[in-house]
């Protein structure tokens, strides 16, 4: 199977290249990027063919593409890709506005290709086990969920993450979708209501939010929080973490998806002390599942709808923070 990468704007593109190369029968045909500096740099770093334009890459007729552009440019690239007949794996959040997400859906359906939203945490073995425990009723009635998806400010890796026009917002749009999706997936219900505090307490140089605290009410009545803040300093031992506690009537589940790590110290680096993970990379499982679904012509394990509902939770959070009142994602 031949796979192309549309844009190296998103950090994750680098990891995806390495994940794809570990899958037998997959050929990475190269990547397109209109930024010459980025094109040259990553072409050299990964020994990849660099296409100046997305059209040039698509002219090679890849079976599938991964869209890893800036959030606000997903729609444009997805529309281009599906017109050429390529199946799509789209980075999260799938868009910054509902109208873009809806247009992507229409384009995908018209082209008759498949579309998968990149929610890698569903492929974390710890998350899968947690979901199974909830499904088996091991915790009894669920009382509450506490979610934390902290990170450092990603702008030092890619400036656009902290530019509203390209990212659609800051920490809240960047992080909320992961846990919102896991809550939907684990409990099999939608988010009924979102109440949020969102602000920028950490970086006066950017015009986006660097902190977001959300309290959700799920349709099954379970309250669930999300801390989406970019509140870890650059010297934190890892980019951040994804944690979730599910408090149940019979027992409580404490999940720290990246807990398995070595403690590593290195001289002369900003991250002098690092937590170096040794568990399977969830991105690997996600890409294998994507490749399988394209190969077998089966529906992707994470759908457009999953990406859309998570986006609506984000947009509800921003609206709630403006109004200081609960907002229903379904109203957006």
């Amino acid at each position, binding site marked *: 199977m031949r796979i192309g990468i549309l844009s190296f704007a998103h950090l994750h593109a680098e990891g995806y290249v390495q994940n794809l190369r570990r899958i037998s029968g997959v050929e990475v045909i190269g990547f397109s990027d209109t930024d010459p500096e980025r094109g040259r740099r990553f072409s050299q770093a990964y020994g990849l063919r660099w296409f100046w334009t997305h059209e040039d890459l698509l002219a090679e007729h890849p079976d599938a593409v991964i869209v890893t552009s800036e959030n606000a440019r997903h729609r444009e690239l997805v529309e281009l890709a599906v017109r050429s007949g390529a199946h799509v794996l789209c980075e999260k959040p799938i868009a910054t506005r509902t109208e873009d997400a809806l247009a992507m859906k229409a384009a995908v359906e018209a082209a008759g290709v498949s579309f998968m939203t990149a929610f890698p945490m569903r492929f974390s073995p710890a998350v899968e086990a947690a979901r199974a425990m909830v499904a088996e009723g091991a915790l009894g009635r669920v*009382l509450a969920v506490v979610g934390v998806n902290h990170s450092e400010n990603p702008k030092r890796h890619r400036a656009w993450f902290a530019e509203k026009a390209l990212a659609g917002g800051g920490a809240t749009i960047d992080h909320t979708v992961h846990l919102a999706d896991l809550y939907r997936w684990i409990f099999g219900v939608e988010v009924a*209501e979102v109440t*949020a*505090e969102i602000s*920028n307490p950490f970086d006066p140089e950017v015009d986006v939010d660097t902190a977001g605290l959300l309290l959700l009410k799920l349709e099954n009545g379970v309250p669930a*929080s999300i*801390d989406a803040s970019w509140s870890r300093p650059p010297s934190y031992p890892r980019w951040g973490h994804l944690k979730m506690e599910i408090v149940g009537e019979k027992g409580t589940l404490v999940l720290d998806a990246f807990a398995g790590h070595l403690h590593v110290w290195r001289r002369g680096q900003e991250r002098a002390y690092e937590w170096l993970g040794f568990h399977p990379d969830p991105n690997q499982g996600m890409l294998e599942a994507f490749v399988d679904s394209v190969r077998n012509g089966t529906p992707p394990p994470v759908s457009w709808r999953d990406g859309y509902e998570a986006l609506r939770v984000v947009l509800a959070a921003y609206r709630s923070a403006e109004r200081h009142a609960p907002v229903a994602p379904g109203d957006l």
Partner: protein
Amino acid sequence: MRIGIVGVGTMGRVHAEAYRRIGAELVGAYDPNPEKLAEFVARFTVDPFRSYEELLLRVDLVDVTAPTFAHEELAVRALEAGKDVILEKPLALDAASGRRILEAARASGRRLFVAMVVRFFPQYRRAAELARSGQLGRVGVVRLKRVLFPPGPGWYRDPEKSGGMPVDLMIHDLDYVRWLLGDPARVFARRSPPVEGEVLEHVQAVLGYADGRMAIVEGGWAYPSGYFRTALDLAGDRGLAEWSSDQPPPLGTLFPKDEPAPEVGLPMAGLEEDPYELELRHALEALERGKPFDVTPEDALAALELALAVRDSARTGRVVEVA
């Protein structure tokens, strides 16, 4: 300074043990339950008082460790009798009752210390000092956790008598947030769905400040027997401080987990820095030397009001403006 304890339940015992360790002059105790009182005075070799009146005649300082619903009556009577008062948290069941206690203290000219013990836990104190010193920069997001197993049979389980979980338990962390960040502009809380016949309760509250700072406080009587977890996470624009009770203590023990849990769980602190000891030592020293308390009666009232706002928001699902 002769000290008398009224109320010999869990907190009465904890305070008595701390007084003994710091060598304070605990002279006696009163409790309406004669068996519990007899057991207490035998254990601490102090005098049993036959009535609260007798206690008030025999001591200089009254330590009220009775259940919350009795706080107002006991504290006001002690103050009116010209005694200084140490009062276990929460101050009272509602704000009006709390204000009456504060008014009694003002009118009597005596001093009132409300025992908000979390401010005396070494890790919470150290983290607050770190934040105050500016080493974290401006603290923008605070996370606090305090979740344990539900209380056993008794008055804690009755919200009419204890105020319920937010007023009895979350008040610790709400007070701590106020200590760090001051008064929030608004509060929003979500609580767990009720479980028939159980006191299981879990609440998450988000506090928003007018200048964009924020905090999330998690509290619960929701874990299986024997589990008690607390955590703090103070994120500033120049640094970060984290602590969790999941970290190993200086001394670890491994015992069977299926042993019966105590009536109310108390978190383990450092071995030589018992927070109750630090708290009561501070109160006695402040009384003896006429120095200010680290927790003012107004702090205790504000923390209670915040806990009541959390309870209201959890009930109605609405954002409560508190400023």
